[in-house]
């Protein structure tokens, strides 16, 4: 018969964690934009929806000792209006503008986007470039912290245990003189699903690259670090030769699929194009 499920609205984080630990089959929703869209298509495979949208403690952004903490319930509109300055703002602002449209930005939360673990997620490449961690809480074990790249395990797969809630995303504020670049390639200007996205942070010391983090979206099961490309940059002078070698490495770091949204060849080619764009932009800045 048609599946029946319950709906609970958590009034505090403690209550939410208790509900998660007491029930084996609970689906947490905040903005609801990933879950409700499926309501129309297929029966919801859960015994209980747990609504987190009233948990104000998850909706704050704070900074302490250069460490940023994004509450899981922060919406993309909130993120868009946040003005942290520097690299964070330069990455977050264009990402938020390219994220869905204003209606969904008013609902969708950063925690939801990370937990949904879509290969084409817009937020995760930026967070991976920021070397972010996720904070997971459960009634039994309290808080544990995982690096985001370890948290994201595959398409729609994360390291979150069923009794855990992703409560925050944390990352260090990059140095004031770090350079960055963000680009999302889609099929239209608004509300488009990513074909390839790129977020990169590069630290230049004199004319050499001291360190870099290059993250790619929609070209692997999860947002990835282009580690081979980063290695090529390490200590190198940012010239045409380095840029060419780095783009080729980034291409080999990616493993895109062929689907109706874009061919694998095109995605691979665009990884190179975007990385080149980014390095040139940083070099010319």
């Amino acid at each position, binding site marked *: 018969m048609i599946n029946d499920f319950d709906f609970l609205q958590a009034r505090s984080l403690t209550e939410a964690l208790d509900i998660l630990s007491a029930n084996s089959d609970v689906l947490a929703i905040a903005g609801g934009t990933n879950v409700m869209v499926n309501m*129309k298509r297929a029966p919801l495979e859960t015994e209980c929806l747990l609504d987190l949208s009233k948990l104000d403690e998850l909706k704050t952004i704070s900074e302490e000792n250069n460490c940023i903490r994004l509450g899981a319930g922060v919406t993309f509109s909130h993120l868009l209006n946040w003005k942290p300055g520097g690299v964070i703002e330069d990455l977050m602002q264009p990402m938020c503008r390219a994220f869905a449209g204003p209606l969904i930005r008013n609902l969708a939360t950063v925690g939801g986007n990370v937990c949904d673990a879509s290969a084409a997620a817009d937020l995760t490449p930026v967070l991976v470039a920021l070397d972010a961690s996720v904070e997971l809480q459960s009634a039994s074990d309290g808080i544990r912290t995982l690096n985001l790249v370890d948290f994201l395990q595959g398409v729609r797969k994360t390291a979150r245990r069923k009794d855990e809630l992703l409560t925050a995303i944390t990352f260090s504020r990059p140095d004031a003189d770090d350079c960055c670049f963000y680009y999302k390639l889609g099929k239209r200007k*608004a509300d488009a699903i990513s074909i390839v996205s790129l977020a990169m942070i590069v630290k230049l010391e004199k004319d050499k690259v001291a360190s870099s983090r290059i993250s790619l979206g929609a070209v692997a099961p999860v947002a990835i670090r282009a580690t081979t490309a980063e290695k090529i940059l390490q200590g190198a002078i940012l010239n045409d030769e380095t840029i060419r070698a780095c783009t080729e490495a980034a291409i080999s770091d990616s493993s895109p699929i062929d689907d109706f949204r874009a061919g694998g060849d095109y995605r691979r080619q665009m990884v190179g194009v975007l990385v080149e764009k980014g390095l040139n932009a940083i070099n010319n800045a």
Partner: protein
Amino acid sequence: MNTKTLNFSLNGLAESIEVTPRTRLLDALRSNLQLTGTKEGCGTGDCGSCTVLLDGNAVNSCMVAALQVEGCEVTTIEGVGKPGNLHPVQQAMVQEGGIQCGFCTPGMVMSLKSLFDEQTNPDEETVRVAISSNLCRCTGYTKIIEAARALGAGEVNADKAINKNGALGSRMTRIDAEQKVTGRAVYAEDVQLPRMIYGVVLRSPHAHAKILSIDTSEAEQIAGVKAIVSARDTEMDYFGYELQDYRVFAVDKVRFRGEPVAAVAATTIDIARHAASKIRIDYEELPAVFDPEEAMTDDAPLVHDDCSAYALDWETERSGNLCYRLEIDDGDIEKGFAEADEIIEAEYETPEAHPGSIEPHSSTAMPDANGRITVWTTTQKPFAFRSFLAKALKRPVSTFKVIPTQIGGGFGGKLFPCLEPYAVLLAERADRPVQMTLTREEEMYGTLLRHPAKVKLKTGVKKDGTLVAHSVRMLFNTGAFGLYGPNTAALASLMATGPYRIPNVSITGLVTYTNNVPCGSVRCPGGPQMAFAVEAHIDKIARTINMDPLALRLKNAWEDGDYTCSGQKLESVSMKECLQKAANAIDWDKPRQLGEGKGIAANWWVSGTWGTQSLIESNEDGTFRLITGTVDMGPGGLNSSVLQLAAQGLGVPVDSITLVQGDTDSMPWDHGTGGSRMTFTIGKSAFEAAEDIKQQLLEEAARDLEASVNDLELVKDRVQVQGDPDSHVLLSKLCYQRHKKHGGPMVGVSSVLDDPTPTTKKHPVGGFPAASFCAHAVELSVDDSTGEIDLKRYAAVHDVGNAINPTGCEGQIEGGVAMGLGMALMEEIREDKGRVMNPGFADYLLLTAEDMPPTQTILVEQPAVEGPFGIKGVGEPPTAPPTGAVANALVDALDLDVTRLPLTPEEVSARIRIRQS
């Protein structure tokens, strides 16, 4: 399911309702609270028609669980403004003509309200972003953006918002604007009846398969199921327009993935879906064919055993999978090629596309006590649907009463009964009202699409640019059923020369069956396909002979007295004027920057076909009723220019005429809306009916005033003796005495027939009353590393003959531009072995407000010889040229070979790589 109490604030008042965990906020509003101003266009958060304010923020109410809004403040369109007391945002939308079909309008108003709650004078970019989640298929966003600008600039006020000046050429406010902008217009899914239940169609999961057995026994046992129907218990016949090859249910075999096999009605939609999943059908898969060229080979699987057996009004040669073939020859093609200095050949390809109405199909059927059935539905052709139902289900036409509801966008998508027969059958079986609505996913394979086409062109040209020979092979893939395939090919053949004088022409049109989703008659059928091929080819010719593309067009463009390939003599030809104005609008002669390009494309189209009847009846107070069986699918011709023409014919103010619309029992017959005919044909009949009743009024007044009819004139509310206004009689008095004493109301009647215009050649389309001409030009830039195109500005020049309502003309053109640009840049149904891979607005992309370029619309008014007041149709033509204009601008920017649409970044990138290698 367990219900819970939900307490929240709705439009400022406390609400308490019972909902389930499954109830979305949208359902709570529409079903529990009967607030139907909030619309459901997709249910997946991709269209914005369900936008409401949640604690002041605009959100998709389809993505919010009702129980999530406990304690929140929700504002819906019903809480924003009322007719007569509109919110400033609503006034702005009405004043600037930002409303057409009205289905996206409530959501659009909510997003704009949210924006203006925060800032008083947002810049254009901010406005575009604020409404970028709200898809609109009718307006091209241009007038909506203009509404926001006017509001920000303080140019909107209540007195100015509604223009009641009905003079010809006046920007009269369409009469349905207020009901639409306040969410009060009633669309098909808003129909609610006592005891109503819900139906779904069970569709084939295979592209081609034998049906071995159908077992409904398990589904029948499910509590709440009230009716199940399939081919085995339905009397059916083939139906269609010119070609009748479709039946309501698949019999013995299915021919496409999505073909209806059975239908179920139950007390809730969820139960109906669940029951449909429990109907067991054994299939034996058959080899299938998807490529139209392959379909014409000898060993291709046959989609229909004998397609030549199907009734078709036109003569043709049919066999195998060849659904229709057409040949047109003019002059001597071999001689033409012999005279040419250069011969240019290319093949062009356009994708399968979707009409893309934001309103999904929805129908409600109710049996009545005497065996008749009433059907509320969203249809462009209420009377044709009555005939369809009669033929399809083998009943007399009189069985059905079709009540057309507001149409939330048609574009040809609402010409075919994709739900009505099932709602009728289920309602009869269940003996209670049944409502059916397509999901957005079903919309993408359960309705008819735009034919994908391959067009081979071979054109001979002299060094000086004179076109001398043109050979055309067009191939349309009609999918599993022919339906409008022959019509599409026939119309496309008319467009095969473009608006150019070419003495020697040979055209072959082919329509093939495959196991793809069937295609239909989408706005300007065959037009964008041919316009892309011909206009891209003209630029290719220009490059070959090193001539400016505009100059080549001007050299060959039709003039008065030229003939179409069907042998119709053209009059009132404004092609050169349109081309020159479009070119000027984008500074054609100014040099381009690196990575930028300019493109131009011309087109022409036919207007004013098929019959109708209009009646104008007097009321006893001297006002009038315009009675027509037609419907307005959104553009507003019926709600503005037809009334303006009626008022002109009578000589009375437009607001003394009430537009009466109704059902097929009570209205005079009409062919329906489509084919760019509303103002041309229905306007003409309304004008003539008005003249008819005016004559009767003058005769009545002549008796009263003891004067000669020839000495009288009708002025506003009275008939008076010319030159002696004191000798007059009020219309109210005339009508009152006529009603009470002399045999009831006066009725003016006009029947406009499809009056064939002579042609020298035999062509299935035959002659048409008037041609319209247009040219579009675009300036764009392209990123040659990613392939992304950025449209800088756009100009659309249309000869409308006589702009009865310029706002309506411009609105249609801007919407057509958006639709054509969609085909040019992003719209494409992707089928993989008959499975639609992108069934929804997340992946079948329509232009958003951010994608629509700044667009200048220029109206040319060179009166048609045939049309009423020189009118030329404008509904379809603007859809065609954008494909060619964008392709040509891209070629201009990067010197590529562009032969395929849509020009996605990936496609452009592939073309760049081909050039580089």
